[in-house]
């Protein structure tokens, strides 16, 4: 079941390329691989924790106030992540800046809380959180690698392609849209070919 869930999170229900959720942070932080992985892992942590807690307390919360309660749960974990990052990974915290607090309004997390965690048991929600979170991380890493290599010819601050003059547009906002479109086009192309 775990394997199935992971496959679902990374491929068939990939949050960025299939569900098209959380595009705003994906466009903004996928300018370098370190940022992409950092953001992905931070979101995975928040998503898993909030999924577990929400699944635990789902029966205690009246329907009318469930959204504010979910937001409070999510915001708590985001604040914890931010404090931990500031304390132990100050460089990454500086790079990600405003986008860590913005995980609160990342639609992937609220979406999973509403669509999955509030209907399933704790263990299932935990697995779902990890699967979707990893899908988010993997997609962000793919975007980041393409954008960082094309846009600044670097990975981890080291050069990648010899004598290649990087195309600065790829680390700007339009490059983010181009890259997402490109990856989605390739995914569609291959999945359509498989069907035929």
């Amino acid at each position, binding site marked *: 079941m775990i394997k199935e869930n992971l496959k679902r999170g990374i491929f068939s229900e990939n949050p960025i390329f299939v569900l098209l959720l959380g595009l705003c942070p994906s466009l903004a932080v996928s*300018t370098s691989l370190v940022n992409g992985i950092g953001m992905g892992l931070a979101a995975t942590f928040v998503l898993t924790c909030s999924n577990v807690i929400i699944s635990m307390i789902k029966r*205690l*919360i*009246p329907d*009318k*106030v469930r959204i*504010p*309660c979910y937001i*409070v*749960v999510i*915001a*708590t974990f985001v*604040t*914890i992540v931010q*404090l*931990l990052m*500031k*304390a*132990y990974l*100050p460089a990454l915290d*500086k790079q990600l*800046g405003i986008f860590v607090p913005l995980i609160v309004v990342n639609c992937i997390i609220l979406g999973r809380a509403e669509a999955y965690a509030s209907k399933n048991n704790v263990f299932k929600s935990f697995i779902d959180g990890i699967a979707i979170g990893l899908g988010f991380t993997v997609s962000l890493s793919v975007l980041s690698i393409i954008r960082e290599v094309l*846009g*600044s010819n670097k*990975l*981890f*601050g*080291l*050069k*990648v392609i*010899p004598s290649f003059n990087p195309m*600065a547009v790829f*680390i*700007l906002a339009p490059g983010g849209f181009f890259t997402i479109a490109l990856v989605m086009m390739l995914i569609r192309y291959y999945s359509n070919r498989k069907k035929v």
Partner: protein
Amino acid sequence: MTDIIKLTVVLTLTGVVAALLIAFTNSKTEAKIRDQAIQAQTSALESIMTPGATITEVVGTTENGLPPQYWTGVNGSDTSYAFKTGSFGYSSTIVYLVCVSSDGTIQGMSILEQNETPGLGTRVQEIISNKYLWNGLFSKKEESSPWFTEQFKGVNIFKPVTIEKSSGEWHKMDKESREKLLQNNGVTAITGATISTRAVVSGIESQAKKYLNAIKGNGL
């Protein structure tokens, strides 16, 4: 009526539990975060002062145009001053530490905060590495500082600072043209980010000059 009480109780409880959790994390990380900030500042100061200088912090008053806080580095008979200043770039305030000797020559500089356009303005902090991914990833990290602030070393803030745009970026220049640039009291602009470059230069020209004059005027 019972409904509204129930809702209020649930929401309040959720808020209280959340607040307790955050308070707990905060109490555990507070000291560490403060340490990180102090450590970042100390290492930034050490990197821009002349090596071996004794650094003392002076908390000045903002009267007489003094910076609210500055540092003196005494190294034998030489005294240099470091202070934090900032100027608005393209999309953010660029905050930097700058260290000048008493005749106005910049000893070192370090950008502390900025939020400029990625790939253009953020390059004020860019560290050029010529190592490739396959041979550099597991080897020892090279010690190098950002080229943009490196080129300010030796520039005098009492003379007008020129921004050179046509000669290409500083890190691509050879030794001779770098010396020639310094004779003109000039720095090179970041390609495509002239506004960020100009912001740093004008911040140094106006703010740093004012601070240094104020410190010297107070007989320190």
